[in-house]
């Protein structure tokens, strides 16, 4: 009777104990830091910092002065509005407002999509049928018209209310993606093995399934953030946005009302427009990189890495043929 150690599997045992974890971490970070991720994250971080810090240093954004429609100068870096308000101050507060709306909506949408998608997908049966039906109904609701209807129906449009309206119209697509992913993961052997080990359903969802959904969820989160900020800008621009909080959309709304375009006041509407474009661009770039991480087929490897991989594959093929000859002889 042979001893139960086989030489082939004993070799990797002895090799490479858990040395150099920080090095490995750094290497995987370097692998993930693609140009699109670096640029996207850079844009988002700069805009976020601006929204967080700048409001503390600027003048009162609502203070009216006699200096109306003044172009950029040393005193007013981004000029003034028709009523003499400082555009830079407004932009700082508007950035904070828009980001706040975006984050609240994205968090709400994440929770809603996770609840309906993951729970329905895991439990199956009638609950899944019901959740799917509800998700599909919400999915085909036309977003902006619904926002307009609700927005014009409600008189006191606070920030939370607008965020809530945006959230209930934007979670459905992510829920469907999460449901299909959960359906796939639910049948994997490691979930079955956890069941056989005696894990309770809530722990299977939270500990075994949820971590494997993180990439999908983070991409959904970023997507919800973009849609929310754009949606809020759209609502504000047509005058149905948040009352009492400045956002990029409300700046554009007032610029439009104040006839900034006809008066040639580009400094009033270009900055908020640029901010929306830059943030949307940054978040999209981040989303593309997440996609690249989730979906290896989209992964673009640097040339050196590719040639290394090809060499490894060659070596594997050689191993395989060796194994085959052994098999034939055995």
């Amino acid at each position: 009777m042979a001893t139960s150690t086989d030489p082939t599997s004993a070799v990797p045992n002895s090799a490479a104990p858990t040395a150099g974890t920080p090095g490995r971490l750094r290497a995987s970070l370097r692998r993930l830091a693609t140009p699109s991720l670096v640029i996207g994250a850079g844009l988002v971080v700069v805009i976020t910092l601006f929204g967080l810090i700048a409001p503390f240093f600027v003048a009162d954004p609502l203070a009216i002065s006699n200096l109306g429609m003044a172009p950029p100068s040393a005193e007013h870096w981004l000029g003034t509005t028709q009523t003499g308000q400082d555009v830079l101050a407004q932009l700082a507060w508007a950035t904070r407002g828009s980001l706040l709306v975006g984050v609240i909506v994205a968090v709400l949408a994440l929770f809603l999509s996770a609840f309906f998608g993951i729970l329905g997908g895991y439990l199956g049966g009638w609950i899944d049928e019901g959740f799917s039906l509800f998700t599909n109904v919400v999915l085909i609701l036309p977003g902006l018209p619904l926002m307009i209807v609700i927005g014009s129906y409600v008189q006191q449009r606070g920030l939370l209310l607008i965020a809530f309206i945006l959230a209930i119209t934007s979670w459905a697509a992510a829920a469907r993606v999460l449901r299909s992913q959960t359906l796939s993961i639910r049948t994997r052997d490691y979930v079955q093995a956890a069941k056989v080990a005696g894990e309770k359903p809530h722990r299977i969802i939270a500990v075994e399934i949820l971590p494997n959904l993180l990439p999908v969820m983070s991409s959904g989160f970023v997507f919800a953030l973009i849609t929310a900020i754009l949606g809020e800008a759209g609502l504000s621009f047509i005058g149905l946005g948040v009352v009492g909080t400045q956002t990029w959309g409300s700046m554009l709304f007032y610029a439009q009302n104040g006839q900034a375009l006809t008066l040639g006041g580009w400094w009033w509407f270009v900055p908020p427009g640029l901010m929306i474009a830059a943030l949307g661009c940054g978040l999209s770039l981040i989303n593309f990189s997440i996609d690249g991480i989730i979906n290896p087929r989209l992964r673009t490897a640097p040339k050196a890495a590719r040639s290394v991989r090809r060499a490894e594959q060659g070596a594997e093929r050689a191993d395989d043929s060796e194994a085959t000859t052994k098999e034939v002889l055995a």
Partner: protein
Amino acid sequence: MTTLTVTDLHKSYRLRSGARVTTLQAVKGVSLELSPGRTVALVGQSGSGKSTIAKILAQLERPTSGTITLDGAPVGTRGRALAHYRDHVQMVFQDPFASLNPFHTIAHHIERPLLLHGRATRANLREKVCELLERVNLSPATSFLERRPHELSGGQRQRVAIARALAPEPTVLIADEPVSMLDVSIRLGVLNLLARLQREENLAMLYITHDLATARHFSDEILVMYRGEVVERGPADDVILNPQAEFTRQLLIAAPEPGNNPRFLAEAQRRGVPMPDHLALAEENS
């Protein structure tokens, strides 16, 4: 010790394609008994219902009809009774690349069943995990604790899966094609490990496979399945050497068994290739 008895097990699936509903009979009237210290092999081609039986015994699927008893008592299907059943019956899955969660460390995979079945406390958890890893020949165990499944080879992963199945200290072990996804060169090592653990623990084992040679070598009794039915059963050597059912004969002809082929053995000897044990053994027996 525990005996798992399965009587007249049926399982059918309803298949819906459009408005038409058909039923697929996956398992038709299978009975078998798993008793301590004995290995029963379930042999058959793909789709013959082998894995369905494994899933039913692991209570991942419900049988359409039939009874499963543990020491004569019908087994519970929910709550505390199910937990008791899982204390006794554990399973090793076919694909070690799918049966370990890529997100979690090796330690996590072994810790959870230990804690869930009260085989370890928080205080001696680490120690117990290392003990189990050493038992499945993963040493030094501490070097495996914090690694993730993708850092391990197929054979190492299957050893982790075996350690996980052993963590609740079961008395019945179901091995669903435990080596079919592994490289040929390491299959024997894993099978020998299973055989050793079975001897040490006096486990009742169900070994599901489509490989007649290993079924004969590692089991006491062989059940041959064809399209959901057991077409032949008996002591391992009888079934292989003196097959009664037509399907068993076909299986034997289809299986390339170099151990029975003098040309292969002579060629191997001439080249000085070391013989795996079961072939050498087969030579002695025949």
